[in-house]
C-alpha cells in the first residue's frame, strides 16, 4: 500500500487497487475513531482468502495496536506472498522476528530471522541463549521463605532476588538506626529489632524443618507439635480435634509469627482435623554483590553469618546500596581500586550521587564532554581517563559538594548544559557552591540536601545564543540582593551585588545560596519568575518583574496562575496583584476572608477555563482583568456579592456562554470541559459526578443566589418577594450543619483550637432569611443589605465549584463531610495570615476538630484535595506502602488534564511511539548497529546501571526482561527519536503519516499538553507538560514530590493503552481517573524511590484492561461470525 508517500511493509503489494481501497477505508474508519470497525473490516476481508495484501493490511493494523494476533496475520501474509517478493518477504520476516522476541518465542524468531536473512541478503542471527539471569558468584541463604523475610523487612514481595539486599540495605540505612541522646552511638529501631528477632525465630523453624527443610507434623499429639507451637509463641486450647484453638502464649514470638505471615490458620485447621501438616521451609537464596568475602573482615566472619553482620552495620549497608545501584563498571573499578574500609568513608556520597557515575570506552563520563574534561580533572584531582581514581577523588572531595555538582549537571540537557559546563564557568560556579567551609556536605542528611542546585541547573533558561535568561534585567536582581525589603540574604553577596555586570554574576550568587540550609528565597523567586517567562513570546517588562520580585513573599503562591497562561500581559498581572493588595486592606477579618475566597475562586475558575481552552489565549488576559476588576472596590459584604457575580459573569461571557443561560448549568458545563456532540454521554457522566459532590456539600446554586439577589433588588424597588424562591434558598441554608466535632464542649475546649471557619459557618447558620425579609418589609435599604448577607454563601459556591472540578476519584471526604468546602480557612489557624499562601491540609488525625480541612489560598487546591483523599485508597495487597507525595501527584495528573479535545490521531500517535520503542528494543537483539544507537539514546534518560542491565538483557536476547527496565516515557522518547528516519518500519511509517496529516495535533506542544503532567513544584504551574527529564531522586524539603513530578510515564502509558483497546479519546476523562486509582491501589513499594514498583503496578492495570478488552473483542468477533 502506498499512502501519502509512505513506505509500508506491504509496499510491493500495493499495485492492486483493491488493496489500496481496503487500506483507505480502514484508515478512514480509524481516523473517525472507529478502530474496532476498521479491525473488523480488515479481518473479514482477509479471512478466507489467500490474499497476501489483505492479510498484510490486517496484520499491520493489529501490529499498530499491539494486538498479539498480529503474528498470526503476518504469518498468513508471508505464506501467501507470491514468488519474487523478496523485499516484502524480508520486511515481514524481520517484523515477525521482532514480534516473536516480544512474545518470548525464540525458536520462531530464529526461523524468521533465517527467512529474513535469505530474502534480504543480510546476516542477522540471535545471540546464544543465556541462562535466565546472570547469577552472581556468591549467594547467601536466609532461613525460611523469602515472602516472610520480605514482610518483616518491609520489602515489596515482587522484588527479584538481586534486588533484595539493596532494598534491605536502604531500609536499614533509613529506618534501622536512630540517634540516642545519651551517647554518640546509634540505637536499633523497633523495625530492625523485629527483623533480627525474626531471623532468630526463622532459624529455630529451620531446625524444625530438618534436613529436607519441610516442617512436618504427623498428628496433633506429638512432641514436635509442641515444639513448633513453642517456637511460634502459641499453645493449644482445648484437646486435639475439632475443639482445638491456637492462642497466644508468648506475645513476642506470636507477633513475629503473624507479622511474618506464617500460615497459622492452616496449622490450626490441620490440628483441628488431626491431619498431617507440612510447611515448606526451604531457605531463600539471595545473591551478594561481589560475594560475602568482599564485605566481611576476618573478625566479622567469625562473628556470624553475613546477614547478621549486614543488619548490624549501617555503614556496610550504605556502601552496599551505593555500589548496587551504580554502573557495574564503575563499582567494579572502585572495588578494585579501594578497600571496603576506605570506600565506607564516603559511602554516603556514593549512595546519593554515584548512581550517575559512568564509564564509557574506558573513560569516566563527565558533564560537558571533551570540552570540560580537563576542568573536571582539575576539580577532582584525577583525570577522567583514569576512571577509578577520578570517581574516588570526586566522591572523597569536600564532603560531597563536587559530586553533587557533577550529579546535578549530568541531569541537564540542551543549551543550559553548554552554558553551565563552559570550563571557566564550571570552576566559578563550583567555587560558589563549595564555599570555604565544606562540612556538613550535601550527603549528610537523610535526603540529598542539594535540592536547590538541582532545581537551578535543571530549570535554568538559556537562550539560543547560549546566555542565561534574566527576567526583567540585571538591575532587578541586583536590587533584590542589595535592597530586599525583607532583609539581606547574605552580607557578602549583598556587597558583591553592587558590582555585578552580567547575568553570570547573578547565577553565581544563586549557586552560592544553594549551599545554605535555610529557605532559599532568592532562588525560589528567580525560578518562579523564570517559569513565568519560560513560554512567553514577549518577555515581561522590567517593572513588572520588579513588582513580582517584591511581592513574592506575599503572593508568590499565586504566580502559578500567571505561569500557566503565557499570553497574559503585564497589565493583567499587575492588576491581579493590585486587587489582591486592596482586598488585604479590608479591616473586618471575616469580610476579608470572604472577599479573598471569592476573588481566588473566580480567578481559579478563569484558570480552569483558560487551561481547557474555553477562553482562548488571546482573550485570557482581558477575561481575567474583567473578572477581577469588580473586586477593586469591595469594602463590605454587599459589594462582595456584586463583585463575585460580576466576576463570574465576565468569565462566562469570555467563554462564550449565552447571556440568558442558567448560570449554574453553564458554569458546571464549562468546568467539565468543552466536549464534542459525540461525547455527550461521557460529558454528562462527568457533570453528574460534579453535581453529586456539589449536592453532598449542600451548596446553593449560583442561579438561586443570583435570582434571589435580583428578586430582592426588585422588591427594594417596590416589587414582590418571590416566596417560593426565598423558601428554596432558606431551606438549603437550614441544611447547613455545624461541623461535627464529636466532642463535648469540655473536650473541645481542652483539645481543640478555634477556627475562623467555624465562625464563618456559624454566621451562615444564624441567617434566618425569611425572618430577615419579613423584617425588612418594604425598606429598600434593608432589602439590599440582605444581598450582602448572601455573599458568604456565594463565596462557598464559587469555592465549591473549584473543589468539584478537582475532586479526585472517590472523593470520600467531599461526600462525607458536608461542610468541607465551607470549612476552607482563608485566614489561617489561630488568625495566622495564610490568605495568599499555598493550600495546605490541616487537622488530619485530629478527631477533636471535626476532621481535616484546607487552609490558605486556592493556589494549591488540586494537590491538597488529592492529599486528603490518598489514604482512602485501599491497597489491593495487605497494608502495602502507598506513599505521600507520589500518590497526590498521580491523582492530580488524572484530574487536571481533560481530554475532550484530544483526537484519535493523538492517542494513536502515543500508542505507535510506544509500540515502535518496543520494536526497536526487540530488533536490537539481532541488529548490532541498531542496538548501539538505541542504547546510546536510552542512556540519556536511564541511569547507567539500568541502561547496562537493558544492554545485557538485549545481548542475551531477553527483550521482555529488557523492557521491564524501560519506562513508558523512555519508550516514547526512543520512538520519537528514531521514527523520522526509519524508512523500513511500517509503524514508523504510520507515525510519519500521522505527522503529515495532522501536524498540529501531533506536534510536540500538543502531545505535551495532552499527555504531560502538572508540575506545580518543578515548574510552578499546573499546566500539564512533558519535560523528558531523568527521574529525580527524593530531595530534602520535597521528599518524593519532585521525583513524582518527573515521572511522566502514567499518562503516556494510559494513552497507549486506550489506543490498544480502541477507546474513544473522550472516554479518557473517565478511564484515566479510574485507571489511576487502580494503579495506586496496586502499588507495593519498598521505599520512596521505588518507582519500579509503580511501573509494575501500571503494567498490572494494563494487563487487566487489555484482557478485558480482548475478551470483548473476541465476543464481538464471535457474534459477527455467527451472523
Amino acid at each position, binding site marked *: 500500500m502506498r499512502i501519502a508517500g509512505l513506505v509500508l511493509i506491504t509496499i510491493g503489494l500495493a499495485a492492486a487497487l483493491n488493496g489500496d481501497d481496503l487500506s483507505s477505508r480502514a484508515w478512514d474508519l480509524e481516523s473517525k475513531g472507529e478502530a474496532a470497525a476498521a479491525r473488523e473490516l480488515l479481518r473479514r476481508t482477509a479471512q478466507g482468502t489467500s490474499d497476501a495484501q489483505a492479510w498484510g493490511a490486517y496484520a499491520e493494523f493489529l501490529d499498530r495496536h499491539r494486538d498479539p494476533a498480529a503474528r498470526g496475520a503476518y504469518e498468513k501474509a508471508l505464506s501467501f506472498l507470491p514468488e519474487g517478493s523478496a523485499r516484502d518477504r524480508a520486511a515481514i520476516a524481520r517484523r515477525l522476528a521482532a514480534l516473536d522476541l516480544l512474545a518470548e518465542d525464540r525458536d520462531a524468531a530464529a526461523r524468521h530471522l533465517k527467512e529474513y536473512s535469505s530474502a534480504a541478503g543480510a546476516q542477522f542471527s540471535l545471540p546464544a541463549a543465556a541462562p535466565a539471569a546472570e547469577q552472581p558468584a556468591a549467594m547467601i541463604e536466609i532461613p525460611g521463605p523469602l515472602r516472610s523475610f520480605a*514482610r518483616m523487612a518491609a520489602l515489596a514481595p515482587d522484588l527479584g532476588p538481586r534486588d533484595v539486599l539493596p532494598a534491605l540495605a536502604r531500609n536499614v540505612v533509613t529506618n534501622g538506626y536512630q540517634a540516642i541522646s545519651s551517647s554518640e552511638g546509634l540505637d536499633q529501631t523497633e523495625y530492625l529489632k523485629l527483623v533480627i528477632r525474626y531471623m532468630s525465630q526463622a532459624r529455630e523453624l529451620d531446625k524444625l524443618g530438618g534436613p529436607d527443610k519441610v516442617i512436618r507434623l504427623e498428628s496433633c499429639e506429638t512432641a514436635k507439635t509442641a515444639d513448633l507451637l513453642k517456637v511460634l*509463641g502459641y499453645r493449644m486450647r482445648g484437646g486435639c480435634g475439632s475443639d482445638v*484453638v491456637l*492462642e*497466644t502464649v508468648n*506475645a513476642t514470638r*506470636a*507477633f513475629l509469627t*503473624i507479622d511474618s*505471615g506464617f*500460615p*497459622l*490458620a492452616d496449622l*490450626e*485447621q490441620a490440628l483441628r482435623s488431626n491431619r498431617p501438616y507440612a510447611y515448606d521451609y526451604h531457605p531463600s537464596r539471595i545473591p551478594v554483590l561481589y560475594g560475602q568475602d568482599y564485605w566481611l573482615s576476618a573478625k566479622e566472619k567469625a562473628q556470624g553469618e553475613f546477614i547478621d553482620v549486614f543488619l548490624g552495620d549501617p555503614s556496610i549497608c550504605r556502601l552496599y546500596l551505593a555500589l548496587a545501584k551504580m554502573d557495574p563498571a564503575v563499582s567494579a573499578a572502585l572495588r578494585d581500586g579501594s578497600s571496603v574500609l576506605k570506600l565506607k568513608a564516603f559511602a554516603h556520597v556514593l549512595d546519593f550521587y554515584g548512581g550517575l557515575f559512568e564509564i564509557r570506552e574506558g573513560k569516566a563520563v563527565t558533564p560537558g564532554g571533551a570540552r570540560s574534561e580537563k576542568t573536571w580533572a582539575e576539580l577532582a584531582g584525577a583525570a577522567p581517563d583514569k576512571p577509578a581514581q577520578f570517581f574516588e577523588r570526586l566522591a572523597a572531595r569536600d564532603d560531597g559538594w563536587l559530586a553533587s555538582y557533577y550529579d546535578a549537571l549530568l541531569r541537564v540537557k540542551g543549551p543550559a548544559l553548554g552554558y553551565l559546563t563552559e570550563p571557566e564557568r564550571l570552576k566559578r560556579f563550583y567555587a560558589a557552591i563549595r564555599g570555604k567551609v565544606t562540612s556538613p556536605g550535601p550527603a549528610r542528611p537523610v535526603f540529598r540536601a542539594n535540592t536547590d542546585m538541582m532545581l537551578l541547573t535543571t530549570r535554568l533558561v538559556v537562550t539560543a545564543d547560549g546566555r542565561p535568561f534574566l527576567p526583567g534585567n540585571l538591575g532587578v536582581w541586583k536590587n533584590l540582593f542589595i535592597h530586599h525589603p525583607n532583609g539581606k540574604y547574605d552580607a557578602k553577596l549583598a556587597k558583591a551585588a553592587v558590582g555585578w555586570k552580567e547575568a553570570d554574576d547573578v547565577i553565581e550568587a544563586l549557586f552560592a545560596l544553594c549551599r545554605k540550609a535555610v529557605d532559599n528565597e532568592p532562588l525560589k523567586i528567580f525560578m518562579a519568575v523564570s517559569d513565568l517567562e519560560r513560554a512567553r513570546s514577549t518577555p515581561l517588562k522590567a517593572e513588572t518583574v520588579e513588582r513580582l520580585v517584591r511581592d513574592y513573599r506575599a503572593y508568590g503562591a499565586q504566580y502559578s496562575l500567571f505561569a500557566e497562561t503565557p499570553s497574559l500581559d503585564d497589565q493583567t498581572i499587575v492588576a491581579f496583584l493590585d486587587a489582591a493588595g486592596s482586598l488585604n486592606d479590608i479591616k473586618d477579618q471575616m469580610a476579608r476572608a470572604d472577599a479573598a475566597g471569592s476573588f481566588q475562586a473566580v480567578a481559579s475558575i478563569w484558570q480552569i477555563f483558560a487551561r481547557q481552552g474555553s477562553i482562548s489565549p488571546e482573550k485570557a488576559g482581558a477575561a481575567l482583568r474583567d473578572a477581577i476588576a469588580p473586586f477593586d472596590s469591595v469594602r463590605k459584604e454587599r459589594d462582595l456579592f456584586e463583585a463575585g457575580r460580576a466576576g463570574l459573569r465576565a468569565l462566562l461571557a469570555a467563554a462564550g*456562554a449565552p447571556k440568558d*443561560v*442558567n448560570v449554574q*448549568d*453553564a458554569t458546571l458545563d464549562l468546568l467539565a470541559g468543552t466536549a464534542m456532540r459525540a461525547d*455527550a454521554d461521557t*460529558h*454528562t457522566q462527568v*457533570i*453528574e459526578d460534579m*453535581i*453529586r459532590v456539589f*449536592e*453532598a456539600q449542600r451548596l446553593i446554586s449560583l442561579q438561586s443566589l443570583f435570582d434571589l439577589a435580583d428578586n430582592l433588588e426588585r422588591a427594594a424597588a417596590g416589587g414582590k418577594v418571590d416566596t417560593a424562591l426565598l423558601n428554596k434558598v432558606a*431551606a438549603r441554608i437550614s*441544611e447547613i450543619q455545624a*461541623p*461535627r*466535632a*464529636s*466532642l463535648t464542649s469540655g*473536650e473541645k475546649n*481542652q*483539645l481543640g483550637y478555634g477556627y475562623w471557619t467555624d465562625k464563618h459557618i456559624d454566621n451562615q447558620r444564624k441567617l434566618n432569611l425569611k425572618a430577615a425579609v419579613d423584617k425588612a418589609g418594604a425598606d429598600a435599604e434593608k432589602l439590599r443589605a440582605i444581598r450582602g448577607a448572601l455573599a458568604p454563601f456565594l463565596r462557598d459556591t464559587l469555592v465549591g465549584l473549584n473543589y468539584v472540578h478537582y475532586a479526585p476519584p472517590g472523593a*470520600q*471526604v467531599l461526600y*462525607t*463531610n458536608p461542610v468541607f468546602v465551607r470549612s476552607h480557612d482563608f485566614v489561617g489557624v489561630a488568625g495566622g495570615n495564610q490568605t495568599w499562601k499555598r493550600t495546605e*491540609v490541616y487537622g*488530619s*488525625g485530629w*478527631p477533636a476538630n*471535626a*476532621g*481535616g480541612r484546607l487552609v490558605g489560598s486556592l493556589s494549591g487546591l488540586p494537590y491538597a484535595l488529592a492529599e486528603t*483523599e490518598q*489514604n*482512602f*485508597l*485501599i*491497597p489491593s495487597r*495487605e*497494608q*502495602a506502602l*502507598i506513599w505521600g507525595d507520589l500518590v497526590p501527584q498521580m491523582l492530580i495528573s488524572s484530574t487536571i488534564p481533560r481530554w475532550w479535545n484530544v483526537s484519535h490521531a493523538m492517542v494513536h500517535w502515543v500508542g505507535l511511539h510506544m509500540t515502535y520503542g518496543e520494536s526497536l528494543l526487540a530488533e536490537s537483539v539481532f541488529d548490532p548497529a541498531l542496538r548501539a544507537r538505541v542504547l546510546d539514546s536510552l542512556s540519556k534518560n536511564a541511569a547507567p546501571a539500568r541502561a547496562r542491565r537493558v544492554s545485557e538483557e538485549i545481548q542475551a536476547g531477553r527483550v521482555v526482561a529488557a523492557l521491564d527496565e524501560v519506562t513508558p516515557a523512555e519508550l516514547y522518547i526512543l520512538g520519537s527519536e528514531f521514527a523520522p528516519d526509519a524508512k523500513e518500519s511500517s509503524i514508523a511509517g504510520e507515525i510519519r503519516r500521522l505527522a503529515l496529516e495532522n501536524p498540529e495535533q501531533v506536534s510536540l506542544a500538543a502531545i505535551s499538553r495532552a499527555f504531560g503532567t502538572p508540575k506545580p513544584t518543578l515548574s510552578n504551574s499546573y499546566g500539564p507538560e512533558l519535560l523528558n527529564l531523568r527521574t529525580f531522586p527524593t530531595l530534602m524539603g520535597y521528599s518524593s514530590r519532585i521525583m513524582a513530578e518527573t515521572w511522566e510515564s502514567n499518562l503516556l502509558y494510559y494513552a497507549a493503552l486506550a489506543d490498544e483497546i480502541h477507546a474513544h479519546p473522550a472516554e479518557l476523562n473517565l478511564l484515566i481517573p479510574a485507571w489511576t486509582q487502580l494503579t495506586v491501589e496496586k502499588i507495593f513499594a519498598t521505599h520512596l524511590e521505588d518507582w519500579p514498583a509503580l511501573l509494575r503496578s501500571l503494567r498490572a492495570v494494563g494487563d487487566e484492561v487489555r484482557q478485558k478488552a480482548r475478551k470483548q473483542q473476541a465476543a464481538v468477533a464471535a457474534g459477527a461470525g455467527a451472523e
Partner: protein
Amino acid sequence: MIRLAAGIACICAWHAQPALAQEGQRPVFRVKVDMVVLSFTVTDNKGRYVNGLKPKDFKITEDGIGQKVATFAEGNRPPVQVLEDGSVKPLAGAVSEEAAAKGVDLRSDALVGTNVFVLFDTSNYMYRGFVYASDAIADFVRGLDRADSVAVYTYSRNLSRAASLTRDRGDAIMGLRKAVAGDDSALYNALLLTLRDAAKVPGRKVVIVFSNGPDNASMVAPDDVRAVAEDEGIPIYVISTNDVNKDSISSGVFKRISQRTGGKAYFAKTWQRQVEAFESIREDLGNSYTVTYYPQANVNEGFRKINVEILSDAAKKYRVRARPGYRPRGGF
C-alpha cells in the same frame, strides 16, 4: 448546556451492587429505591431481651409519620413479608408488589443472618496487644451464628480487606491471621470505608471495631462517620480495652458513636477478657428485630427522627434500642 436535576439518585439504605457477595453463592440484588432497614432490640426492665413480638406489636414512625412495614425478621430467622392487615407470610416466592415494582428481590436466604464486618486496628497503637486482639477476633468469628456472614478488614493508615464477606469461618480467620502490623492509625477513615462496603450488601449488617482508640491520620471526623452509619442503618460496636482511657477522646467517642448507631461499646481489662463483650454482641444479633419499609412522603430532607413504639400493654416495661434516625442522602 446540560441541565440536571439537583438530586441525581436517591440511594439510601440499600445499594445496587452486592459487590462483596460471592458469585454463585449469593443472589444478585438490584435495589434502586430508598428502602430503610431498621434493626432494634427490645429489653425488659431487667435488661433481658424480649423475644416473640410480632409486627403488629410495633408502630414505626418517621418524624411522627407512620410507616408501613414491608418485611419483618426476628434474630437470625428468615424475614417474612408483612401484609396490609399486619399478618405475615414467608418471603419465598412471594415478592411484594411494591418491592417488585421497585426492583427489589427479597426471595433469598441472603437476608437470613447478619453480615458482620470486623474492623481490626493493626496500627502502632495496638503493637502490644496485636496478637491477643487477633486471638480475640478469631474467637469472636468462631462463635458467630452459622447464618451470619463475616468480613475481616484491618487498618493502619489505609484500609485492607483481609477477608471478604463469607460464611466460611476458616476463610475469615485465614485473612485475619495474615494481618500485618502497620504504623499510623486512620480509624475513622477506615470505619467510613467499611461502612461504604457494608452499605452495598443487602440484609442486616453490623460493624465491629477492635481498637484501642487513638487516631492520628483520619481526614474525616468521628461524627461524620457516625452520620453515615445512622443513615445506612448500620450499628457500630466497639470492642476495646482499658488502654483506650490513655486517650481521653477515644473512649467518649466510642461510647457516643456506638450508642447513636444502635450498637454498644465494651471496655475489658485486656483483650483476653472480651468473652462478655462477644456474648453480648452475639445476643444482640440473635435477639434483635429487623424491619424494612419504604418511607412515606416527607418533606424533611434533613435528619428524620425514627421512633419505634411498642403497642402492647407491656410497652411501659420495655425499652427499645434503635438508631435515632437518618438523613435521606443524595447518593454516593
